[in-house]
């Protein structure tokens, strides 16, 4: 498997795999699953917080590509972005159908890079970059972003939860996204 400098799989094989999937090649879907199951599962689990449900949603995400291969257009963005979008939507739908689970924030995640053990996830380093970028945002912006993305809360729900006016919540999310984008683009991150 080819990887880019950040450790994530190179983009070029995605196009080839998607073309093979569109042609009904099962082995291509399995290869893609092996490539992206872990990051997609991490996102889904973060939202649904149940292993069994998370695995079902993970399978549904990849079956969306299998059943509707043309819903992904390689010219319009990376496959991982598309997978994350589908996975998030399916996970949030599933979560809304079930009971609400306790909230948790990325900041609760313990940094394991300096530990003795390291996991097998190929794209882990890139993901740490995003986690560190989030940590460098002002706390209010980070919390608003995490609640909107991982919990799927609307502005009104966010305003209720944070006890702030809707306008303030919108501004926090907007500024948070802008700052996050700048941090990731300029690579001015200080990895702690």
């Amino acid at each position: 498997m080819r990887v880019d400098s950040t450790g994530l799989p190179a983009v070029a094989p995605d196009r080839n795999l998607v073309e093979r999937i569109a042609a009904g090649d099962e082995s291509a879907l399995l290869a893609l699953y092996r490539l992206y199951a872990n990051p997609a599962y991490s996102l889904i689990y973060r939202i649904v917080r149940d292993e069994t449900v998370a695995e079902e949603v993970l399978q549904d995400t990849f079956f969306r590509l299998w059943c509707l291969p043309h819903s992904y257009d390689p010219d319009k963005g990376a496959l991982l972005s598309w997978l994350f979008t589908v996975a998030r939507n399916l996970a949030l739908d599933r979560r809304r159908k079930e009971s609400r689970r306790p909230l948790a924030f990325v900041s609760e995640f313990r940094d394991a890079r300096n530990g003795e053990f390291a996991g097998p996830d190929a794209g882990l380093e890139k993901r740490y970059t995003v986690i560190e970028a989030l940590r460098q945002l002002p706390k209010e912006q980070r919390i608003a972003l995490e609640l909107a993305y991982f919990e799927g809360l609307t502005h009104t729900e966010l305003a209720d939860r944070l006890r702030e006016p809707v306008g303030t919540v919108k501004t926090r999310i907007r500024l948070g996204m802008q700052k996050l984008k700048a941090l990731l683009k300029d690579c001015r991150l200080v990895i702690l």
Partner: protein
Amino acid sequence: MTTDCGRFADDWALFVLGSLEPELCRQMQSHLSAGCALCEARYRESLNDVSRLGEAAPPRVPAIGHEERFAARLLAVKPAAPPIRRREIVGWIAAAAALTVAVWLAFERRDLERRLAQAASAKPAERIVVAPPQVIERPVERVVEKTRTIDLSASQLAEESRRRREAEIAKDAASRDLTIAQARVSELERALEEAARRAQTASRSTSAASPPEAAAPAVPAPDPRLASLNAELERARAEMARQTTQIVELRRVLRILESNSVRLVDLRAVDPRAGRAKARVLFSPSQGLLLLAHGLPALPAGKCYQLWIIRKGSPAIASGGLLKLDVDGHGVVSTSADATLANATGFAITDEPAGGSMAAQGRKLLFGAY
């Protein structure tokens, strides 16, 4: 560019997050649908930016065997057909209904002919004979259970030789079962084809012979024999898929045992909480890893056992998978070849939160060095 483009410029990230008010969302959606290239580009950019937040989710790995479960579902779903249009679905339903009616008519006609023949002479009518379902024995499971109960006190060479023999027996038994299942599927498919062919012939002859006013019987219920045949066929197919999966797994284990580079590492308890637990790892860098453990104490809810590969190189320690534990405290891990096995120098088992950890956090219970 319209005034809307400026009005929406800052909101595309919020739109992608799905947290905007429904009315504003509708306006932005219709603006996009109108074909504004500038806003389409902004929307795409926001889509990519927002999706990067997904990378910030704390890393987790699915439960062991998830790939196999996904592959099994994929095989069950095949083929990857393009979306079926409503008209096609109606067509298929109509065809299925027509076939059912045809089969029913065929059976009715046969019955009528039989009665007529009985009335005319004493010769009995021909009947379709459906063979009773065969009971498929599965010695594979019993043999696999044997391989799990290892005796670590026996000499290593004798143990390995016994295990190889058992794996070969299991492989043969599984192949036999598969052949039986395949034969049963073929038999059922032939029976179905025959029934369909007769139904078609009967339908043609009935429509040709009957006067128009007599050709409008009430629509009958589907024939139960056809449904029963279909159900049996599905059961046989499921059994065949299960046997195939088992054979693949056994072949993988056999390849590890047969490999010239196979190595054996015994793991001993290094923590009083491990009790009298023992484990043995057979691994080949080119073929994979097999771990057999016994005597492991039951863990409280929310915990699981995880195998770790200790390596010379980076990463120094990598996950080898989660142990599937049975009621007797026997645990098995079987993985395919992986780069982390190349420089393995030892193995450890820890207790981790359910679902496993990316980095070991629990107590080191068993350990063995190569």
